[in-house]
């Protein structure tokens, strides 16, 4: 077996430091909620609808609450209280709030016990839908079985959901196991969840209920035809992270991109906002058994993949601990990494292997996602296919679980039908030709690969200990991840962060975390 030697002591120290880091953040954010979390709570309470100009009700309600500084007690508190006291359904209460027929602060306070009982009842009801979907999905997965690992993950990004379906179906017929529908450019900065089907997106299609449904149906059909379960992926990130988690949970997605820091670093979203949002959204995803994919691969598009390899490892430990603190289990945590070392570097393949193998061993139960070369891809589509071939080889050798296929046209356009075909053909061949290669070789003791793995791990530990020391927020503000610095009170969405009152209520939080990934 092509394994690298990893010092167990260093590994546990790293994990401890990461736990410390995550705990410190969680402690800090425990006293806060966000408007996005509250919107999610309202959705979980079953309130749906849009105004005539397309603004979701949940936004109208929580915006009002924010404006009137009511969010500190939690949206659930106000709505449930009103429902009890006015003896009407939540939906009716919501409507009244929206149309200005009801001033929530004017409703008398209900009895605490009654409130709690009602909350729990509504929460359980709210989660039932998720539980149903979870078990439907599990049944279908069991029935159809899944492809062979590394699972072949391809993206569709035409900007038109119907065209995305056409492309996805063809990919499945060629051997793809996972379809990720890429999201409209900058949707993550929208502070509401849009609706409807998308046909004119840029860089991808809007993540909406309707789009999710169109693709889920198509893939279930394609999966039945192909005789294997086809996974559907979308994004749980940006200013609506917790709501996206619900959308994914209810529409039967299998994987969502969800990172504890991506929004901060790459979308300049406020830190507290992101940390709070990811914490709650992961509780939902874990409960719904929707796997996450973290975004460490992105670091290597702005920072150098060789020099900053340890930041990927450090971040994986942190992402893992955050997820566990939200109740997820390792089997749900698809940590990300990428094949991004500059191809001009001698022995680049060896360094890539060291990293890829290390990730597998550090997180043996994690369905890690291995990302292809992107940064050093060029307009030379023939050569790009070769870069992807080595990436495919690295993945096969190190037994990755989820393999995101590189496209020859990476530097040119979002994938066209034939690009994906060429890429799948490449991958099928390389995986097949190197089927048992990883089991067949050993890495020389004290060789380049072994030394590299040890070095990266040691650097990751150093970094984690430093971050544990100074705190994650300070670390980010120093640009320790992705070479990008963000300030603690900068970034988008800060105005949606609210200090909780002592009697803040969120009926879902503990329930979700407790049941968590274990189902």
């Amino acid at each position, binding site marked *: 077996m092509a394994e690298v030697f990893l010092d167990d002591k260093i590994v546990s120290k790293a994990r401890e430091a990461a736990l410390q880091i995550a705990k410190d953040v969680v402690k800090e954010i425990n006293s806060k909620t966000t408007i996005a979390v509250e919107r999610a709570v309202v959705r979980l309470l079953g309130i749906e609808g849009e105004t005539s100009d397309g603004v979701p009700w949940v936004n109208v309600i929580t915006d009002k609450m924010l404006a009137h500084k009511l969010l500190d007690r939690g949206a659930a508190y106000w709505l449930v209280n009103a429902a009890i006291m006015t003896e009407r359904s939540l939906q009716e209460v919501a409507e009244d709030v929206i149309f200005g027929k009801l001033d929530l602060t004017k409703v008398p306070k209900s009895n605490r016990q009654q409130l709690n009982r009602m909350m729990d009842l509504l929460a359980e009801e709210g989660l039932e839908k998720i539980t149903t979907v979870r078990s439907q999905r599990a049944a279908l997965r069991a029935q159809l079985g899944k492809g062979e690992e590394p699972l072949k993950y391809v993206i569709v990004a*035409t900007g*038109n959901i119907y*065209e995305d379906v056409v*492309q996805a179906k063809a990919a499945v017929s060629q051997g793809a196991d996972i379809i990720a529908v890429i999201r409209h450019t900058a949707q993550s900065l929208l502070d509401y969840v849009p609706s409807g089907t998308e046909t004119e997106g840029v860089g991808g299609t809007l993540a909406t209920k309707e789009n999710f449904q169109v693709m889920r149906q198509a893939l279930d059909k394609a999966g039945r035809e192909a005789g294997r379960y086809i996974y559907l992926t979308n994004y749980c990130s940006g200013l609506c992270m917790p709501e996206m988690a619900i959308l994914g949970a209810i529409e039967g997605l299998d994987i969502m991109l969800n990172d504890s820091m991506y929004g901060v670093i790459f979308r300049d979203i406020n830190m507290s906002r992101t940390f709070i949002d990811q914490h709650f959204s992961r509780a939902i995803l874990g409960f719904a058994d929707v796997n996450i994919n973290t975004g460490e691969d992105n670091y290597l598009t702005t920072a150098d993949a060789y020099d900053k390899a340890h930041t990927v490892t450090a971040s994986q430990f942190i992402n893992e601990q955050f997820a566990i603190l939200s109740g997820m289990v390792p089997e749900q945590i698809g940590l990300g990494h990428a094949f991004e070392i500059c191809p001009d570097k001698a022995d680049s393949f060896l360094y890539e292997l060291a990293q890829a193998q290390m990730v597998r061993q550090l997180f043996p139960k994690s369905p890690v996602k291995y990302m292809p070369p992107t940064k050093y891809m*060029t*307009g*030379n*589509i*023939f050569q790009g296919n070769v870069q992807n071939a080595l990436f495919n080889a690295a993945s096969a050798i190190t037994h990755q679980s989820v393999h995101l296929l590189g496209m020859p046209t990476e*530097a*040119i*356009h*979002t*994938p*066209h*039908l*034939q690009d994906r075909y060429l890429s799948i053909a490449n991958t099928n061949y390389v995986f097949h030709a190197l089927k048992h290669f990883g089991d067949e070789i050993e890495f020389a003791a004290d060789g380049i690969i072994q030394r590299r793995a040890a070095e990266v791990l040691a650097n990751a530990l150093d970094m984690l200990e430093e971050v544990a020391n100074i705190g994650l927020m300070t670390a980010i503000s120093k640009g320790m991840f992705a070479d990008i610095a963000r300030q603690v009170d900068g970034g988008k969405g800060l105005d949606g962060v609210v200090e909780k009152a002592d009697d803040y209520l969120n009926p879902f939080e503990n329930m979700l975390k407790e049941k968590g990934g274990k189902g």
Partner: protein
Amino acid sequence: MDLTRLKPYGDTPGDGMVQVSFTLPIPVGDEARHAALILASRMMLKDSKVVLMQPLDDSFTYFILYGHCDQTVDYTSIHVAKLDYQPMTPSDINSFIAEKLGRKITVIGACVESDAHTVGIDAIMNMKGYNMHKGLESYPQINAINLGAQVPSEELLAKAMEENADALLISQVVTQRNIHVKNLTRLIEILEAEELREQMVVIVGGPHITPELAKELGYDAGFGPGTYPEDVASFLVQFLNKD
């Protein structure tokens, strides 16, 4: 989709997406890029993008381009003259010969003239066959004689006369400077000069052979890449049955 106005498809119906690559015998530079774009527009591509401009040395530059083809094809009006036969299995073919033709048939295979690529004709003729499809040698009703590589047309015809062959199966693989066209034309000319053309079915195959090219050169049929022995045998026996 309007099949009378068929266009290439990249990720949107009608986008006309086409990938092109070529080398121009000029040095790399802005002018070269322009020359490539002009050429692309003469190839009826709109909004072309040069995605790679790579010097191959001081005086050659290689380009990869993407552009939108604004030409269309009326797919509904395409009628390809198909070889007129029903595909049969080997055992059906043998029964067909026995029943309809009432005699064993003799087939001679060869790579003619300068061509030495026997793998293709062997795949058709020899016992072993191709991809688990056994060759004509394995057909009890066919007397399959494979002359192999670089057989001069004259030698082939002598053998055909001697064996009283029903069909010649010719393979041509090398196409540089259209040598296959020259070789194939020569064979037909000799056959006609000897007034033998009508006496046998003459079939050609090879990786760059199309049914149309075969017809054009005076052959009864042409078979391209991926042909199996039963394909040509099905055609042959049905063709013989028509005469």
